[in-house]
């Protein structure tokens, strides 16, 4: 059984391997062991810290196989993108070029270097061991972050975003980089990605265009990939959409990959949250009960102070069914019967509207969430 938990310093070896295996490089996971160690330490401090508003915090998650203790993936959240530095994206603006006299009217897009996402919380550093089969695990590892965000609203901004890999050809060449970045950097994309380490570095201001780029003036190959996800990112793209992220008018400055944004209030982890109370069931009994109740897969998270846990579990769809969890799952979550856990259907339910009621209460944090549970139970 797999579960997601915060990364620890004792995970350093495994994380170092993942950082080196990840292609393309993960900006949030440096290859250098000391730098990586510092990142993990920052994450441990961040999870522990009392936080009233997002700042320098960095939250690192790992996907662990409970049976072997092996780490199979990692993901992270940057509390405030760029933090003390600007975070760069291209904003794709529409400009109207119209002349009444000539009876012409055209919308012309232009890409402007923008700092608009600076300081917003950013989902980052997603890496899943390619040997792990099935999409559910990718969902778990990716969406566990939003489960954490939903349960810890004060630590994050009300809008969060995620940058996905843009289109590259078989040789790993990005048509957008060839048309834009290369002209400014005179270097290969992979080379610059390796040394750049993110989208907040000083050299971006020095090297990238200070004026907007007119999209129609770019080569067609570059125009075509604008905001398009890489084939390798299609699953990630779908997971984000399922969570409630939407393509916005931002694209990555290097490969024009999509930047997806979500209002946390409208994300699945908030809107479809059903905070339920754990009820003990026997390991075998659970399955039979589930079948009878019409069960579905849920993301279940326990936000116990200091040790966030998230796993997948089959739960009855009926809300008053509480959370009948077998002991194996309870131990994954580090929870006991009577604890309230956050439960969100892994996939959108046909009648999703009913799930919205909890969203507002969620703003007040866990106590409010509990209150919402009772409302739910009464209904």
């Amino acid at each position: 059984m797999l579960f997601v938990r915060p990364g620890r310093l004792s995970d350093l070896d495994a994380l170092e391997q993942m950082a080196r295996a990840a292609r393309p490089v993960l900006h949030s996971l440096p290859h250098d062991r000391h730098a990586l160690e510092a990142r993990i330490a920052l994450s441990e401090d961040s999870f522990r810290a009392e936080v009233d508003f997002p700042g320098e915090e960095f939250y690192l998650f790992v996907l662990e196989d409970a049976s072997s203790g092996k780490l199979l993936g990692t993901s992270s959240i940057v509390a405030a993108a760029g933090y003390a530095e600007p975070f760069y994206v291209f904003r794709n603006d529409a400009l109207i070029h119209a002349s009444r006299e000539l009876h012409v009217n055209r919308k012309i897009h232009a890409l402007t270097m923008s700092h608009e996402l600076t300081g917003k919380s950013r989902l980052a550093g997603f890496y899943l061991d390619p040997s792990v089969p099935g999409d559910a695990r990718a969902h778990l590892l990716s969406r566990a972050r939003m489960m954490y965000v939903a349960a810890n609203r004060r630590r994050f901004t009300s809008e969060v975003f995620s940058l996905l890999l843009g289109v590259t050809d078989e040789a790993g060449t990005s048509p957008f980089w060839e048309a834009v970045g290369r002209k400014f950097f005179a270097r290969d994309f992979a080379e610059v990605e390796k040394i750049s380490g993110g989208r907040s570095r000083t050299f971006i201001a020095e090297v990238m265009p200070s004026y907007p780029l007119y999209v129609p003036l770019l080569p067609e190959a570059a125009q075509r990939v604008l905001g398009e996800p890489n084939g390798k990112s299609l699953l990630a793209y779908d997971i984000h959409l399922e969570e409630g992220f939407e393509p916005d008018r931002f694209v990555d400055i290097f490969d024009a990959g999509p930047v997806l944004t979500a209002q946390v209030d409208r994300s699945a982890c908030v809107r479809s949250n059903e905070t339920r109370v754990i009820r003990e069931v026997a390991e075998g009994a659970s399955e039979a009960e589930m079948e009878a109740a019409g069960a579905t897969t849920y993301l279940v998270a326990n936000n116990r102070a200091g040790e966030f846990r998230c796993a997948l579990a089959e739960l009855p769809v009926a809300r008053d069914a509480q959370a009948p969890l077998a002991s194996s799952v309870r131990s994954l979550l580090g929870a006991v019967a009577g604890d309230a856990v956050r439960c969100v259907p892994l996939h959108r339910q046909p009648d999703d509207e009913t799930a919205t009621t909890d969203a507002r209460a969620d703003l007040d944090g866990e106590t409010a969430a509990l209150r919402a549970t009772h409302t739910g139970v009464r209904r």
Partner: protein
Amino acid sequence: MIVVRAVKTTDLDAVVALAQETGPGLTTFKPDREALAARIERSKRTMEGHAAPHEAGYFFVMEDTATNDVAGVCGIETQVGLEQPFYNYRVSTVVHASQELGVWTKMSLLNISHDLTGYAEVCSLFLSPRYRAHGVGGLLSRSRFMFMAQFRDRFPERLCAELRGHFDADGTSPFWRAVGSHFYQIDFNAADYLSAHGRKSFLAELMPRYPVYADLLPEDAQKVIGLTHRDTAPARKMLEAEGLRYQCHVDIFDAGPVLECHINDLRTVRESVVMPVAIGPAGSSDPSRAGTASAGAPRDSTPRSLVSNTLLADFRVGFAPGEPEGGVMRLSADDAAALLVGEGDPVRVLVSSHTKQSQPS
């Protein structure tokens, strides 16, 4: 004698007829009777001192005095951009460098500019194809510099000339395809015509408002920035011999170069000299039409001079055989008559040494 002279109201028919020889393509000189009448009228008002600064402009015609055939036109705008903005791209340089990354890149940026506002402009040059082999293109072009030299205080400090940009063999501009077509949404000739006829408001509405990175454009478009149309290359050579230079301004439609200089630095202004006329057989025995060299190229051994009178409304200029000697310019009776000068009248003379070498070939 073939002379270039200030236009007269009575030239209208001849000018309209001449404009019919242009054929498609040249949009600045069309057989539009009304527009041409207005142009002639404007030149007249300018001569008389009745034109406001924003409309002041001169128009000249080339005429064979033997046949009264009008074979060419040219013009000067006194100060461009005072009514409607005078748009160009300024090709500027941007360097992106990062010591941290060891990156240093230099790019060209096209900025919409009004830098040339208030400059005089030499423009509207058209020579009938019937006369192109006659070596009179130089006379037509340089006549304006003789006029400026003679009436220097009628002009501002600087001068520019817009040259047609490069077009592919199929008659299209790679620069227009890469840039203008996306913004203006009409075809090149329509845009050029509107712009040339003072209907420029669409430019402000449609042109790119931000600078354009030239290095991001398709290569064929980059290559033609500041490049002259094949047919305009001789005109460019002549203007450059006169002292005009490309100073990183180009046309917003076809990226053809704009040549610029200080009027005081024009060779014709610096080197032409005013002196009295002596009528009589010139030192050379060549007949009066030597300057036009109707058959074949002029013989290099034959010295000749560009000679103008010093009159405003009756300004005339032409090539005459010979050179000034002893502080006077000797003209044949016919040439003197063609230039409307008599014995002892002052004429402005530019000796042939450099006029010959900068003749378009």
